[in-house]
């Protein structure tokens, strides 16, 4: 069904709550002197949002006259993005860096970014896609540069801004060609126009897709639009790095999938997708995917800063997730969605441990981890080991299950070269994921690394994430079933 503006509001409660929270947090900052009030309100709001999203269920509908689509796929990503927001706020409340910032503005912008990601996951119109992507981008620039008089933070914000501005500009230029060829901005109508018009403008469509890929590829940090990621992840406050790594990337994948699958591909009767005739974007993305994971892994090998190492690792992880994207089947998308959850759990965990160490020692380089297990940091050391094993894809962790589904989809789609490249990459990544583990457990501390003390707040979240990594690695049935159920796109009222 297609709903008008007023009728749509009933399904829009979580987004309305987030919008209201932005204003409330900003105003609260003016009247309250408490250093944590803004954070607690933001936390409460995002918890309520989670409940609203979960309780709201799914209504297959176009909201706001087709600007936004509310289907199972959007439901899945709304949940994932809310979880990412909760983790980011939780970490912000426990972060020493963030405590020195203006609290009200920080949380208001953070919630606004979360709202933008919601809209990215639901966008059903090129205008909405652009607006939501820009809402996420603009707030991310601000959050990245939030550490005043911190040179790295400022520089990261500048680089993010420049790459982001060019990428989104290129994207809307590509969108203008799609608009010209299809005659509409609505995804459903674009699909109708492109799949029926034949091959008349296939070259034009292909060039437009390459241009659009600049904007969307930049959000998921895939090659060649990844250059901002290492600098931004290193310079930004760690909670924001986490938020960008898990939330922004998930939203990017949601938009990418929604645009490249239901908007411009055709769903065949046997459940596989067909690209438009003469528009061979899967081949292009296949190459991008292989380069992304290889480049991410090779660059990570020589990093000595943990944030930077994890940044390159997250580029490589985006490459793995893209493996599910390029095979053009529902199996692949399901594997990608499962992997995004797995990635959320393990990557947020890894960044959280980095934050705990940075809180205690003020350092992020690998030397600060020397002998961590033997100088009071046994618990974070074990947790980080679990997260890194999971990122590598060692069995008994959720990362392994995620990779298993990805490789299964790739092999079923008969993309053997991609499977081989993926496996070689997993082996390469073993080297740099094991290095911090060796440093933490086998090296002896020098004594200049600084004390690590237990902080209940951060250790609590770390325990939850570590437990989730293990439990989901042993008992993943409900999660894959959920991803399976969520794999339904609403393509318009018939």
């Amino acid at each position, binding site marked *: 069904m297609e709903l008008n503006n007023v009728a749509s509001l009933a399904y829009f409660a979580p987004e309305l709550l987030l919008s209201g929270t932005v204003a409330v947090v900003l105003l609260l900052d003016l009247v309250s002197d408490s250093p944590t009030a803004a954070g607690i309100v933001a936390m409460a709001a995002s918890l309520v949002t989670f409940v609203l999203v979960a309780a709201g269920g799914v209504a297959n509908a176009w909201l706001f006259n087709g600007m936004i689509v509310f289907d199972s796929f959007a439901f899945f990503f709304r949940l994932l993005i809310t979880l990412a927001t909760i983790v980011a706020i939780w970490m912000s409340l426990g972060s020493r860096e963030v405590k020195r910032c203006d609290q009200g503005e920080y949380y208001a912008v953070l919630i606004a970014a979360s709202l933008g990601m919601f809209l990215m996951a639901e966008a059903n119109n*090129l*205008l909405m896609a*652009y*607006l939501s992507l*820009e809402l996420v981008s*603009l707030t991310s*620039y*601000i959050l990245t*540069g939030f550490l*005043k*008089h911190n*040179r*790295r933070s*400022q*520089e*990261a*914000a*500048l*680089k993010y*801004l*420049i790459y982001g*501005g*060019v990428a989104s*500009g*290129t994207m*809307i*230029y590509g*969108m*203008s*060609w799609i*608009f*010209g060829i299809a*005659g*509409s*901005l609505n995804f459903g109508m674009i699909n109708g126009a492109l799949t029926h018009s034949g091959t008349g403008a296939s070259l034009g469509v292909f060039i437009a897709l390459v241009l659009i890929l600049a904007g969307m590829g930049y959000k998921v940090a895939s090659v060649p639009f990844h250059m901002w990621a*290492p*600098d931004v992840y*290193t*310079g930004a406050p760690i909670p924001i790095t986490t938020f960008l790594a898990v939330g922004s990337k998930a939203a990017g994948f949601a938009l990418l999938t929604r645009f490249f699958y239901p908007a411009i591909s055709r769903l065949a009767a046997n459940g596989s997708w067909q690209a438009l005739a003469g528009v061979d974007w899967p081949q292009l993305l296949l190459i991008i995917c292989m380069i992304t994971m290889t480049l991410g892994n090779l660059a990570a090998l*020589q*990093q000595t800063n943990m944030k*930077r190492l994890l940044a390159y690792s997250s580029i490589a992880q985006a490459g793995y997730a893209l493996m599910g994207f390029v095979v053009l089947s529902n199996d692949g998308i399901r594997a990608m969605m499962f992997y995004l959850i797995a990635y959320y759990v393990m990557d947020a965990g890894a960044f959280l441990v980095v934050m705990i160490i940075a809180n205690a020692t003020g350092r992020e380089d690998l030397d600060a981890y020397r002998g961590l297990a033997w100088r009071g940091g046994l618990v974070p050391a074990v947790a980080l080991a679990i997260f890194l094993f999971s990122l590598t894809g060692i069995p008994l962790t959720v990362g392994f299950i995620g990779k298993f589904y990805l490789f299964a989809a790739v092999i079923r789609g008969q993309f053997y070269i991609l499977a081989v490249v993926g496996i070689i990459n997993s082996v390469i990544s073993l080297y740099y994921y094991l290095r911090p583990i060796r440093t933490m457990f086998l090296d002896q501390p020098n004594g200049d690394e600084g004390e690590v003390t237990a902080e209940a707040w951060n250790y609590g979240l770390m325990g939850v994430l570590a437990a989730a990594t293990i439990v989901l690695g042993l008992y993943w049935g409900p999660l894959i079933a959920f991803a399976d159920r969520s794999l339904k796109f609403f393509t318009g009222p018939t």
Partner: protein
Amino acid sequence: MPGGLTLNHFLVLSLIVFAMGLFCVMSRRNAIGILMGVELILNSANINYLAFAFYGGGRYDGQIFTIFVIMLAAAEAVVGLAIVLAIYQDLRTIDVDATETLSG
């Protein structure tokens, strides 16, 4: 349209503006210069939307998109200039090469 202008004239114009914007972004080392290049890219897209909307007939989607792009370009300029200003206060330069502390 008077003067014998066709859709193609506008598309070529927008392509030229887009190319100039990209060139500007890649060749400038001054942060403000790069932001101006981004504006050119955005405006090349605007020309396309208006041209397609005018010649394609139908609804006002193209014009509305353009209005939103103009507004967002302003928002982006605000955030961009704020970041550039913060950099200038710290480093006394807005040359993007001079700010190179993160690399590798």
